């Protein structure tokens, strides 16, 4: 029961934040609502006993990416853009496409449980803590992808420095 209350409140926070993110006129307001939405997702991670991802979501997304977004919003002059119309001309078509895809996915979710039966939920086998389990898996089974991810971050650093240079 307490699980359901937390799930629905975090879900409401996530979805309301997301809707307000894509409908606000001012980019700063959008960024603030995106933070609310990301906090809701972080709460859902905690509800699913993914404590390490919860901390990562708060530190990286809300602390890192959103500060980057707000920094760029302050750097780039968005006042003229805020005066113009915020949605492009194809929005009815885009809405129709999104509704069609949503209907398709929900149909599969509703009907597909017989065609693609999931095994029963596993019992919580966390004998070690969540962070410890992630660390063991990340540094043994997924060591090579972990190193490749560091190269990806290096490329991103070099790319953003080059892009933000004075003359390009």
């Amino acid at each position: 029961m307490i699980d359901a209350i937390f799930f629905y409140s975090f879900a409401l926070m996530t979805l309301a934040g997301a809707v307000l993110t894509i409908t606000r006129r001012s980019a700063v307001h959008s960024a603030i609502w995106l933070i609310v939405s990301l906090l809701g997702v972080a709460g859902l991670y905690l509800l699913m006993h993914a404590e390490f991802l919860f901390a990562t979501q708060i530190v990286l997304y809300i602390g890192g990416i959103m500060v980057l977004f707000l920094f760029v919003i302050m750097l780039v002059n968005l006042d003229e853009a805020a005066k113009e119309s915020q949605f492009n001309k194809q929005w009815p078509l885009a809405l129709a496409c999104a509704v069609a895809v949503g209907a398709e996915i929900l149909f599969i979710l509703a009907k597909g449980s017989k065609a693609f039966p999931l095994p029963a939920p596993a019992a919580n086998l966390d004998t070690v803590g969540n962070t410890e389990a992630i660390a063991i898996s990340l540094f043994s089974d997924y060591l090579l992808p972990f190193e490749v991810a560091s190269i990806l971050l290096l490329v991103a650093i070099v790319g953003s420095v080059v892009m933000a240079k004075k003359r390009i």
Partner: protein
Amino acid sequence: MQIGTGHYLVLSTALLLIGTLGVLTRRNIVIILMSIELILNAVNLNLIAFSRHYGHVTGQIFAIFVITAAVAEAAVGLGILIALFRNKGTVLADEIDLLKW
């Protein structure tokens, strides 16, 4: 009432669709990038819901890699946005039409 994996899948579907709608309809590139973050969060929610369902930590590892890709994408995307604003003086996606004829 029991909250199962299905609840999380429906929620992540809704989040994915809101993000897609933002990417397709907004004109401001900053908000298009924010909508991409929403889509990536929907993916992460899905991965962790299945990680919980199977009682296996692999889904969470993949969520970490998705977050890494999101960080790289945001950094490069915002760098491109700054370069674009310096050269064209606009942040509206449909006014950047150099390759259109």
